[in-house]
């Protein structure tokens, strides 16, 4: 699993403060620790920085590249900021995160990625918002995004499609569709486009104590349909453990076996079955309940584990 570390994100109060004081040490430390924890690239989301982009984007790129060699994912909607960052990058091939399928974005952002030799994340979101159905998302990739990239002669091996994870708390019906979208997108082009998702979005506005569980169960399902890249939290040890179990087909413990079973069921276009779970084990019971909300079988509520 190619993990793009998500922790340099402006929603974090600490990141906000560190940026305000231009605290280089803070960002250097956060980048190094993410790479040590297993991140293969570092996402940088400091927002659009409408006023100070010309200074902030080169500053953060230079700061982080002073301590790590991995690719940086430039995560912003500000096209000027994107270019300022890309121009500064000296090390690995960067990732431009992202363009949508809206015409105005598709007009500019892919050209920028091409100019600087960056990989490009393209969201399957058109001007009329995010479609629910899996095949509608695939259509956006096939009918809008890919033709535009072919038109500008963009190297297709640098395209990464993000079919958009939405939160189980409020957009629950999207969760199973996203799994199917990941499955189908691999057939959207030959060779298969890379696919990446923002995993933690699935547990946005979920109480903090339940987020990791929801993230790792969803991750197991997505690995079942072949997901190999995601923006996620490399400090989440339980998530990293589940990824390891599935990647190595480790079935040495009941829990490792269970997560592999979940991935296998989803891989076979099947659903986890209650007999796969030892419900007398509270952790397995919690995983079972989590599969049911993620597959939109049982309505999500904050207290879903207590039901």
């Amino acid at each position, binding site marked *: 699993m190619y993990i793009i570390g998500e922790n340099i994100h402006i929603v974090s109060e600490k990141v906000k403060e560190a940026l305000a004081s231009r605290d280089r040490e803070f960002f250097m430390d956060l980048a190094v620790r993410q790479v040590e924890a297993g991140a293969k690239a570092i996402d940088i989301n400091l927002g659009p920085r409408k006023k100070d982009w010309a200074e902030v984007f080169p500053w953060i790129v230079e700061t982080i590249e002073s301590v790590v060699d991995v690719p940086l994912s430039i995560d912003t909607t500000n096209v000027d900021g994107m270019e300022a960052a890309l121009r500064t990058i000296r090390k690995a091939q960067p990732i431009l995160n992202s363009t949508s399928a809206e015409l105005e974005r598709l007009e500019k952002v892919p050209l920028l990625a091409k100019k600087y030799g960056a990989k490009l994340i393209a969201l399957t979101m058109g001007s009329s918002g995010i479609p629910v159905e899996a095949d509608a998302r695939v259509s956006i990739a096939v009918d809008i995004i890919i033709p535009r990239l072919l038109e500008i002669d963009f190297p297709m091996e640098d395209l990464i499609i993000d079919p958009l994870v939405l939160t189980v*708390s*409020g957009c*629950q019906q999207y969760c199973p569709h996203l799994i199917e979208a990941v499955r189908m997108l691999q057939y959207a082009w030959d060779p298969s486009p890379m696919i990446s998702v923002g995993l933690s979005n699935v547990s946005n506005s979920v109480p903090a104590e339940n987020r990791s569980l929801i993230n790792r169960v969803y991750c197991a399902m997505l690995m079942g349909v072949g997901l190999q890249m995601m923006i996620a939290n490399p400090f989440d040890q339980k998530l990293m453990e589940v990824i390891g179990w599935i990647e190595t087909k480790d079935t040495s413990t009941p829990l490792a076996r269970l997560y592999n079973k979940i991935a296998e069921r989803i891989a076979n276009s099947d659903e986890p079955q209650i007999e796969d779970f030892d419900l007398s084990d509270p952790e397995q019971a919690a995983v079972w309940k989590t599969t049911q909300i993620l597959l939109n*079988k*049982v*309505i*999500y*509520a*904050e*207290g*879903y584990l*207590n*039901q």
Partner: protein
Amino acid sequence: MPLEIPKDKWPGSVRTVTLGAAAAEGGTRTKTVTIGGQTAMPYLHFEASPPHPPAVAVEIKSRPPEDWSPLLLEAWGELVNDPAAWAKKAEEIGADLIVLALTLADRPEEAVNVVQSVLRATGVPLIVWGPGQAEKDNELLVPVAEAAKGERLVLGICEDKNYRTIVAAAMANGHLVQARTPMDVNLSKQLNILISDMGMPKDRIIMDPTTGALGYGIEYGYSVMERLRLAALQGDAMTQSPMIVTPGFEAWKTKEAKVGSGVPEAWGDWKERSVNWETITAITLLESGADIVVLRYPESVARVKQAIQELMTA
């Protein structure tokens, strides 16, 4: 060629809930109302007829309403000054239930008195709403719950910010609660979980998923209710409570019902339009699974009851 109609067979059902208690059960009601028990989506008689018809409640207030449409005030006339007489009249014109809304001006002893006088004047079960401000709700509903112990009132309105005191008062005195959430299936289920976690028996919870009037978001309310009902039938215990909605309140705050002058002539007769707005809102919500509709206008009660009779006929 014979046509085979596909039928759904659901593993779950809506919980059966009884409002009001007769003398034998420790109350004073001459009629009780039982709702819920459905094992199919609304009125699909070819799958399973609903075992109980939905109930029509009429909303009255402890003091003359200050912000109600003049049409409502005209229809009820002097009765708005006398909650007991108002409730009695509502029962006479067909209300299955009375909703008594207390106001911010009420003191606790006044609230108790008005609840008792309404109970004396009527035989149907009573739903009592606080004025909708957490502190005041608790201040009024706790003594009301104690004074009417055993009547199986419905106490409301529990919301996620304020439910504990009301639930505790209902549990201690044999009442039910109305659990309201803002048009969202997740929040609706969560409040049910929180209330059940306090030890409230599940057959004493009525869900209020909130709704909008015709033309003002009713489609959102409709789909939330439909989704909750589907989950209930699929067996999700925390969505199986019967549902109460307030089409009267919603319809009578729309411009179409509220405003009589300065509107296009094509809108037609003010009164007829308003009654239609309330009636159509209510009937739409019945179709989406409402078990109790709370109305305001006398004529709407008759029309909605007529519609219920037709809906209940297989």
